[in-house]
């Protein structure tokens, strides 16, 4: 596609990030060496450059961290809520102060466009700490009785798609309610959590209240199975979520799970097409589609299919794929070779099963992990790309004729995290919102998040809510 103006690269400087060659574990307020798990490397998915080494936490390391959190719990939970609140407000402020640094770091380690790290992730991270800071001294008014108590030590395992934001979703409500935490960041994106440890130190947070143990899935498994924790919070795949649910069965650990999704984004014939196209693009290509609530199934009313797909393809042709640090970039790098292989395999299955594949012509960088934005038409409900979570920039298009058919197709999934509705008719929007079995419904918008707004799924997308007053329940003994 020719354009009147050519883009000049506008790269964000990475000099604001000072990376150490290697990182230990943050336990009891100190960075310490691991006990024999060795070091792992974390790479920039955009270049495959090694950014730093970090520690593979062992079961012994997890135990040390849980003990530190347990020791810290008594004093932390006994602090007046107003004092805990001030620690969280401090953290929120420091995140704001260091947001440029953290955004660049997140982009380096995760591969997401700097525009998104800067404009979505980091503002939401700070806002989440601000929001829950304010709850710390108001818990008696939250509808859980006059004096709800914290649970104790929370074991938290988070994914790689929004590393620091998922940390905020877990840590802020846990601390506000008076719990202490042991957090295990994802294997491919440990750095922002380690930087957060430094923020905790700057904020003067008492030692042991936040502990960060890095490592792979085995480290997470040790954490959720540890008998000394009282709460497990996990965001990640449905498969791992089920394994965790089995692990905590028969214990008194409270569990919340935020898992996969296969959201329908439903466009009616009266929808504002241009807005809908923007919403579809944001729904599936935001964060390279590495979003559990991504609008990965486009359900379009048959009568406007051609018009909508033409407009969508035109818009997709303008998406810029490439250097995540370039402020022009819309779609960054796929987070890991492993994830790229999974997306590639599922897209191949889409073609093999008979769906028609389309991507705009775009040049992908020579090194790093990349996947062009991809559209599949002629998709049926039986196709794997209509049933399985791709977790990548791949959109499956299905059609419908009546609202009832749209509902039936949208709900025909074991998942139930989110859904989108595009229509100008208010009564139809409300009827649809009522019928869809999903925890978040975006109507005439998509992928909006806010600390005041509860987020979480129905069915196999997990249980419990994060955000809002509802998000407190996961960390209170109620």
């Amino acid at each position, binding site marked *: 596609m020719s354009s009147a103006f050519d883009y000049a690269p506008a790269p964000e400087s990475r000099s604001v990030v000072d990376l150490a060659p290697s990182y230990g574990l943050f336990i009891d307020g100190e960075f310490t060496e691991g006990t024999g798990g060795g070091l792992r490397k974390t790479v920039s998915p955009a270049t495959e450059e090694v950014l730093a080494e970090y520690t593979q936490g062992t079961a012994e390391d997890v135990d040390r961290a849980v003990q530190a959190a347990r020791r810290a719990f008594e004093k932390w939970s006994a602090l007046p809520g107003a004092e805990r609140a001030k620690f969280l407000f401090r953290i929120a402020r420091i995140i704001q102060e260091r947001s440029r640094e953290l955004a660049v770091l997140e982009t380096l380690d995760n591969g997401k466009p700097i525009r998104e790290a800067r404009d979505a992730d980091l503002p939401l991270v700070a*806002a989440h700490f601000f929001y829950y800071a304010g709850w710390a001294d108001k818990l008696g008014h939250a*509808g859980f009785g006059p004096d709800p108590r914290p649970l104790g030590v929370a074991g938290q395992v988070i994914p790689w798609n929004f590393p620091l934001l998922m940390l905020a979703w877990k840590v802020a409500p846990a601390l506000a309610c008076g719990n202490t935490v042991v957090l295990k960041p994802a294997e491919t994106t440990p750095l922002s959590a380690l930087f957060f440890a430094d923020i905790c130190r700057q904020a003067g947070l008492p030692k042991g209240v936040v502990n960060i143990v890095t490592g792979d899935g085995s480290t997470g498994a040790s954490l959720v199975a540890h008998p000394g924790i009282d709460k497990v919070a996990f965001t990640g795949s*449905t498969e791992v*979520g*089920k*394994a965790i*649910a*089995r692990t905590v*069965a*028969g*214990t*008194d650990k409270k569990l919340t*799970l935020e*898992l996969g999704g296969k959201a329908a984004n439903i466009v009616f014939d009266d929808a504002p097409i241009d807005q809908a196209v923007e919403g579809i693009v944001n729904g599936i290509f935001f964060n390279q589609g590495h979003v559990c609530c991504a609008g990965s199934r486009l359900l379009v009313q048959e009568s406007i299919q051609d018009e909508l797909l033409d407009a969508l393809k035109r818009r997709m042709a303008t998406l810029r794929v490439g250097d995540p640090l370039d402020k022009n970039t819309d779609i960054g790098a796929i987070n890991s070779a492993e994830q790229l292989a999974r997306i590639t395999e599922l897209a191949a299955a889409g073609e093999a099963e008979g769906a028609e594949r389309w991507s705009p012509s775009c040049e992908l960088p020579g090194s790093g992990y990349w996947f062009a934005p991809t559209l599949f038409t002629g998709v049926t409900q039986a196709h794997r790309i209509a049933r399985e979570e791709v977790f990548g920039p791949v959109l499956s298009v299905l059609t419908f004729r009546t609202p009832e058919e749209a509902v039936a197709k949208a709900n025909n999934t*074991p998942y139930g995290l989110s859904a989108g509705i595009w229509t100008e008719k208010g009564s139809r*929007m409300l009827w649809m*919102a009522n019928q869809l079995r*999903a*925890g*978040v*419904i*975006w*109507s*005439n*918008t998509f992928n*909006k998040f*806010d600390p*005041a*707004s*509860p*987020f*979480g799924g*129905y*069915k*196999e997308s*997990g*249980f419990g*809510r994060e955000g*809002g*007053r*509802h998000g407190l329940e996961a960390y209170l003994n*109620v």
Partner: protein
Amino acid sequence: MSDRLSVLKTYKLYVGGKFPRSESGRVYEVTDAKGRWLANAPLASRKDARDAVVAARKAFGGWSGATAYNRGQILYRVAEMLEGRREQFVAEVADAEGHSKAKAAAQVDAAIDRWVWYAGWSDKVAQIAGSSNPVAGPYFNLSAPEPTGVVAVVAPQDSSFLGLVSVLAPVIVTGNTAVVVAAERAPLPALSLAEVLATSDLPGGVVNLLSGRTTELAAPLAAHQDVNALDLTGADAESAKELETAAADNLKRVLRPPVARHRPSDEALRAAPSDAVDWTADPGTDRLLAFLETKTVWHPMGV
């Protein structure tokens, strides 16, 4: 002295609004607290449990889609019907649990009042569990609770009627449908409750009642892929762990047995955790809120 021979009742299951025998043709002897024969109750099978899930799923759309006002009216109607059959239930509870008439009457009265209490919750629960959320942008944002779906309930073993009502009413008042495994040794009050439910305008399939071996019936319900939630109140600690593990297969919401989790060392309580529950106490909102999903709807504001 009349020598009229009384007419005995054949107790049956309650599935999909009908009263079938167990498809297995099996029954088991139910005795009173002193060991005297009371009736032959259906010994429901795994197939009966699966049939009950099908009925509960079929009823879910209509019941969850009914107005809260309508559901409240129907639960209140259950209380009205029970009041009219109070003496029958007093006798059955006295037999089942070995209580005096007076103590059994107190249980039945509390159960009737519990239906009234929960009936009133139908159109209020969304107002305590929902919220309008002040997001940082030009969006209307509202969170409201919705029923989870089909809930399998292992009813308390010790409190065959008040306990049963206390776990069943909060499940259905919010729009869920239920498959209930009645107290194994004392299923008769539950099976008689089915007759009340069937004459209270409650749509068939909203409540399905099974009698039989708790372990035999709970296992297929916990593993069933079309059950959304599991209430383990009447399960012993050991089987509760197995059932919760099976429930993870499709991520059922699980309400664990009471007390056992707080005092796992007490042998008697591990065997029957719900024995420690005082069913006459104020139930609070915990059970009401346990089987709800929060749905949050966003919409832009603009001209």
